C-alpha cells in the first residue's frame, strides 16, 4: 500500500469513526427505553435495509448509464448556487415501453406464475385436505414431510430435475425401456420444465396455509349438511371450499408473488426463449451492466406485484383479527 493510499485509508477510517460517534450520540438522545427500543431496533433495521433501498432504486431508475464507477449519472448535482440541480431522465421507462422484449417478459412471467399457482392449488389442496383429516399422530409426521424438502437446498432440488427430464434422463430412459415411447420426449429447456420446477419448488408454500385453514374447520358444519341430506361433493363445494377461501388466497399469493420474479428455475430448466422478467433483470444487470434500466425494470416489477402483495397483507390481517 502506498503512503498516499494509507493516508486516504486513515482519513476514511477517521471519517467512519467520527460518523459512528455522532450516530451514537444522536441515538442516546432519543427516548429509546425498554418497550420502544424493542420496536425501534427491528423497525430501524428494516427501514434502512428494506425501505430505503427501494427509494434508491427509484432514484437510479431516473438516471442515465455512463461508463464510470458507479455507472450512472447523479440525480442531484451541487454545481452552483444553493439549490441542487435535479437531472431526472424518464428515458429508461420510455425504453421499457418501446421495446416489446420487456412487455413480453412481464406478461409471460405473470402467465407462467398464474398457471403454476393453479397447478400448486390442484396438487396441494387434496394433500392439505388429506393431512388435515389424517389421525393426529400421522398428521405431525405428514406435516414434517411437507416441510422437510423446504429445508434442503432449493438450488439442488431444481438441479435434480435436469437429470430427470433431460433427453437421456430418468423419465425418458424408463419410458423407452418400457417401450411406451419410441424416441425421447423433449421435456427439458422449455416452458413445461419451468412449470414443473415452479410447482415442485413452491408446493409446500401452498400446502401449509391451506392445511392451517382446513385443520381449524368446524366438522359439525359438514355433519349438519350431511344430516340435512346434502351429498358429500355438494357439501364440499358449498361448505368446505368457501370456508377455505382464506387459505386458498394466502397460499396462492405465497406462490404467485415470488414465482413472477423467479430467476433460478427459468435459468436452469427453461429454454433460451423462456422469457421471464427475473431473468431479463439479471441479464440487464450482470451482462449489459445497465444499472438504470435494471432499476426501471425493478420499479415496474414492484408495481406489478403491489396489488397481490396488498391482497395478501389484507388476508393476513383478517386472519390475525379472527385469531385475536
Amino acid at each position, binding site marked *: 500500500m502506498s503512503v498516499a493510499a494509507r493516508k486516504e485509508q486513515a482519513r476514511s477510517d477517521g471519517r467512519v469513526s467520527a460518523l459512528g460517534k455522532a450516530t451514537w450520540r444522536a441515538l442516546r438522545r432519543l427516548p429509546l427505553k425498554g418497550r420502544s427500543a424493542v*420496536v425501534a431496533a427491528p423497525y430501524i433495521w*428494516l427501514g434502512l435495509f428494506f425501505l430505503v433501498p427501494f427509494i*434508491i432504486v427509484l432514484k437510479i431508475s431516473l438516471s442515465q448509464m455512463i461508463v464510470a464507477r458507479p455507472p450512472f449519472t447523479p440525480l442531484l448535482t451541487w454545481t452552483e448556487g444553493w439549490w441542487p440541480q435535479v437531472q431526472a431522465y424518464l428515458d429508461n421507462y420510455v425504453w421499457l415501453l418501446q421495446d416489446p422484449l420487456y412487455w413480453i417478459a412481464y406478461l409471460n412471467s405473470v402467465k407462467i406464475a398464474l398457471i403454476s399457482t393453479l397447478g400448486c392449488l390442484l396438487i396441494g389442496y387434496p394433500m392439505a385436505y388429506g393431512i388435515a383429516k389424517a389421525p393426529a399422530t400421522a398428521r405431525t409426521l405428514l406435516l414434517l414431510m411437507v416441510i422437510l424438502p423446504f429445508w434442503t437446498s432449493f438450488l439442488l432440488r431444481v*438441479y435434480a430435475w435436469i437429470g430427470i427430464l433431460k433427453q437421456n434422463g430418468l423419465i425418458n430412459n424408463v419410458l423407452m425401456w418400457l417401450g411406451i415411447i419410441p424416441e425421447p420426449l423433449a421435456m427439458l429447456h422449455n416452458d413445461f420444465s419451468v412449470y414443473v420446477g415452479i410447482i415442485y419448488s413452491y408446493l409446500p408454500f401452498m400446502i401449509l396455509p391451506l392445511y392451517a385453514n382446513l385443520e381449524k374447520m368446524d366438522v359439525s358444519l359438514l355433519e349438519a349438511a350431511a344430516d340435512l341430506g346434502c351429498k358429500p361433493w355438494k357439501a364440499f363445494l358449498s361448505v368446505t371450499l368457501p370456508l377455505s377461501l382464506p387459505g386458498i388466497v394466502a397460499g396462492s399469493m405465497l406462490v404467485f408473488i415470488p414465482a413472477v420474479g423467479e430467476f433460478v428455475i427459468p435459468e436452469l430448466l427453461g429454454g433460451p426463449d423462456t422469457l421471464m422478467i427475473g431473468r431479463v433483470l439479471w441479464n440487464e444487470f450482470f451482462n449489459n451492466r445497465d444499472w438504470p434500466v435494471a432499476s426501471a425494470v*425493478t420499479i415496474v416489477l414492484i408495481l406489478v406485484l403491489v396489488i397481490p402483495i396488498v391482497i395478501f397483507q389484507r388476508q393476513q390481517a383478517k386472519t390475525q383479527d379472527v385469531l385475536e
Partner: protein
Amino acid sequence: MGQRRSIFVLTCLVFGFAFLYGPILSLIVYSFNESKLVSVWAGFSTKWYGELIQNEQILSAAFLSLRIAFITACIAVTLGTMAGMALARYGRFRGRTLFTGLITGPLVMPDVIIGISLLLLFVTSAEWLGIPGSRGMPTIIIAHATFCLAYVAVIVQSRLSSVDVSIEEAALDLGARPWKVFFTITLPIIAPALVAGWLLSFTLSLDDLVIASFVSGPGSSTLPMVVFSKVRLGVSPMINALATIIVAIVTVAVVIAGVLMHRAENRRQADIQQALARAGYQ
C-alpha cells in the same frame, strides 16, 4: 361415498409425496453412480465423495457460507424476536401498519428485487459515507439477516399469540421488571420458536443464491454461487454427492430438533399440570 373420497385423497397424498421426494431420491441414488453420465447406472461407487472433499473451491465456499449462515441466524433471531414481540404484545402502536408491511414484504418479495435494491443501497452508501468499504461477507450477512428476521418475526408472533398473556401480566402485577418477565417467563415459552427460527434462518442463508450474487464482492463466492456456476455447465455427479450430504445433515438435524422440542414441550405441559395440581385445582 365417503370411502371413495378418502381413496381419492389418499391417492393424491401418495402421488404428492412421491412428487416431493422423487427428485431428492434420484439425487441420492445417482451420487453413488460410478459413471460420469448421471443417467446411466454403471455400478456403485463413492468416488464422487472423494472428489468432493478434495475440491478446494467448494470447501472454502462451504466454509464461508456456514460462517455467514451462523452470524445471520444469530442477528435474525435477536431482531426477529423483538419484532415478533412487538407484533404480538404491543397492540396498535404508532406505525404498526408500516411495520407489518415491512415484515411481510421480505417474505414474498422476489429475490431479484431484494438483491438489486440492497446492492444499490450499498453502492450509494459507499459513495456518500464510505461504508461499506468493499462488498463481501458483511454485506451478505446484512442482506440475509434482513429477510430472515421477517421469518423469525412471523414464527415468534404465532407462538406468542397461542400463549396466554395472563401469566406475563400476573408477573408484572406482582412487581417483576419487564426484562425479568421476558427472561424468566416469555423466553422459555417461546424457546421452541427461537430454535425453529434460528434453524430456518441458518438454512435460508445457506441456500440463497440470488441475493448473495448481487451483494457479494470479488473473492467472496458462497456455496450456492459455486454450485450454480458448475450446474450451469451441466450435470455433475460431484454436485449429487454434495446434495446427498446436505440432505443427510438436514434430516438428522430436523429429527433431533423435533425430538428435543417435543420433549421440552411435554416437560412444560407436565410442569403446568403439576403446578396446577399443587395449587389445588385438581
